[in-house]
């Protein structure tokens, strides 16, 4: 792999950019791999990357029914934060956030991580108490956050309206090291690094069946033929229920659309991420100038990647109260992604009833921020059978009542 650098740009500029090589190969599947990862989104590719980097397993295929990073990795609002209440969540999300800080150097691919800061607005007395509690919990977990006053909120976000008629801003939970990153670049960077390690990223290859023998996985059937494997990782977000059915078990997951939208681009007006969980909206400004707005999930199960219109309306209604200046902006694009929601709104990274099948799902409405941490922990789980990062997120927790109850802390904008 030719490294990207300032020198490389100069070199290519001098020869009409003829020397750039493909960022990743497009191979046909081999007969057998040590590990197959289903799903070439951020989490799947990160898992493959850390299998190679940390555990030396490089005979890996990442198979994807669509295109690389074309699912929820390309459909989120790119927010990165780790201000969670419960210890297991704080551990994995903080791991992810810290890996994002060095990701561009690590992958030699600019993922444009921008630690611009994240504010979660407290707009009710309950939220004030809740976020103060989270700030204290974060102090114990070693995650740097603070509860800030409305005056400080106004300093950080001058365009905010503190005295909304319905939901005045009473304070906020501020994580200065949170921020955003370029979502596609995260998938592309990992794919390039995986391909460089000799792994096969196989796109447009849909899994149609999973072959088990004696309670143990032996391979998958795909639209490009049968592929054998020793271990199988399923990392397919909203479609994990389908794959689990093929493998012969069920998952405590429901799939719902979550939508987001962007406005027309405007000049820089907000240099951090603001989340307003009471009113179901969150907003940041992209480098292109678009206001990136995330909303709530539909109340009913669906696989439409569209979302109900009234949820977008609800979000926008709430945001123009908090940010009056966005009221005159036109909406540029709107889309939905299928998120997999579990009973306690926390993810599942676990072994499954079928030996050597591992599942990474249930990230629900907040998976992007976790990509490197999830990949790091899940790779360790797949390689060694145990990971301290993923231990609490196993499938048995629902039966045993050991929930990781984050919905109280994170609400809709999880």
């Amino acid at each position, binding site marked *: 792999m030719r490294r990207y650098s300032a020198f490389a740009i100069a070199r290519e500029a001098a020869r009409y950019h003829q020397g750039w090589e493909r960022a990743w190969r497009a191979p046909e599947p081999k007969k057998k791999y040590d590990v197959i990862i289903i799903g070439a989104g951020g989490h799947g590719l990160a898992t493959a990357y850390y299998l190679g980097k940390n555990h030396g397993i490089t005979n890996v295929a990442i198979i994807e029914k669509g295109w690389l990073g074309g699912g929820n990795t390309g459909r989120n609002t790119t927010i990165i934060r780790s201000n969670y209440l419960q210890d297991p969540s704080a551990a994995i999300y903080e791991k992810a956030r810290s890996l994002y800080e060095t990701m561009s150097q690590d992958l030699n691919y600019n993922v444009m991580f921008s630690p611009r800061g994240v504010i979660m607005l407290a707009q009710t007395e309950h939220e004030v108490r809740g976020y103060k509690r989270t700030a204290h919990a974060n102090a114990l977990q070693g995650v740097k956050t603070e509860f800030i006053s409305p005056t400080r909120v106004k300093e950080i976000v001058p365009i905010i309206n503190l005295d909304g008629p319905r939901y005045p801003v009473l304070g906020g939970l501020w994580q200065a090291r949170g921020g955003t990153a370029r979502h596609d670049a995260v998938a592309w960077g990992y794919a390039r690094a995986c391909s460089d390690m000799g792994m096969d990223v196989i796109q447009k290859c849909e899994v149609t069946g999973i072959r088990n023998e004696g309670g143990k996985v032996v391979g998958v059937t795909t639209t490009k033929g049968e592929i054998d494997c020793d271990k199988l990782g399923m990392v397919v977000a909203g479609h994990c229920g389908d794959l689990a059915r093929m493998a012969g078990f069920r998952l405590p997951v429901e799939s719902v659309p979550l939508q987001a939208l962007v406005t027309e681009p405007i000049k820089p007006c907000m240099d951090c991420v603001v989340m307003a969980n009471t009113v179901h909206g969150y907003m940041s400004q992209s480098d292109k100038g678009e206001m990136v707005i995330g909303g709530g999930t539909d109340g009913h199960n669906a696989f439409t990647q569209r979302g109900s219109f009234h949820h977008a309306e609800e979000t926008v209604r709430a945001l123009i109260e908090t940010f009056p200046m966005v009221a005159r902006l036109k909406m540029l694009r709107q889309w939905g992604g299928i998120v997999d929601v579990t*009973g306690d709104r926390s993810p599942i990274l676990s072994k499954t009833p079928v030996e050597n099948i591992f599942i990474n799902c249930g990230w629900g409405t907040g998976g992007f921020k976790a990509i490197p941490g999830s990949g790091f922990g899940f790779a360790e789980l797949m390689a060694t059978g145990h990971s301290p990062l993923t231990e609490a997120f196993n499938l048995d927790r629902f039966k045993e009542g050991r929930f990781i109850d984050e919905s109280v802390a994170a609400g809709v904008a999880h």
Partner: protein
Amino acid sequence: MLILTCPCCGVAGEETEFAAGGEAHLKRFGPGSDDDQFHDYLFMKENPKGVHLERWRHANGCGKWFLAARNTVTMEVYGTYAAQTYEPPKEIKDKISAKVPGWSWREFS
């Protein structure tokens, strides 16, 4: 937009009139059931890519609960029916079978 017809009051309304209430025809397990049954009842919801039977409430209307058969991929509504039933009426099942041959739902199809 999703349009449902409430079988209780007969009004056809947009999605905003209704509140989704999750999976229909759940068999309830309470005191006396074992851990597996209780776990399955609480968490192992049907999550099909296709025909979904679900509860809805006509929240901004007559306020009553009813059930609906809907496709989670095409968003087609096959019909709505009374909540006081153990499975969908035959005409709705036939309609689903015509559109989605071989569909299934827990113990009946």
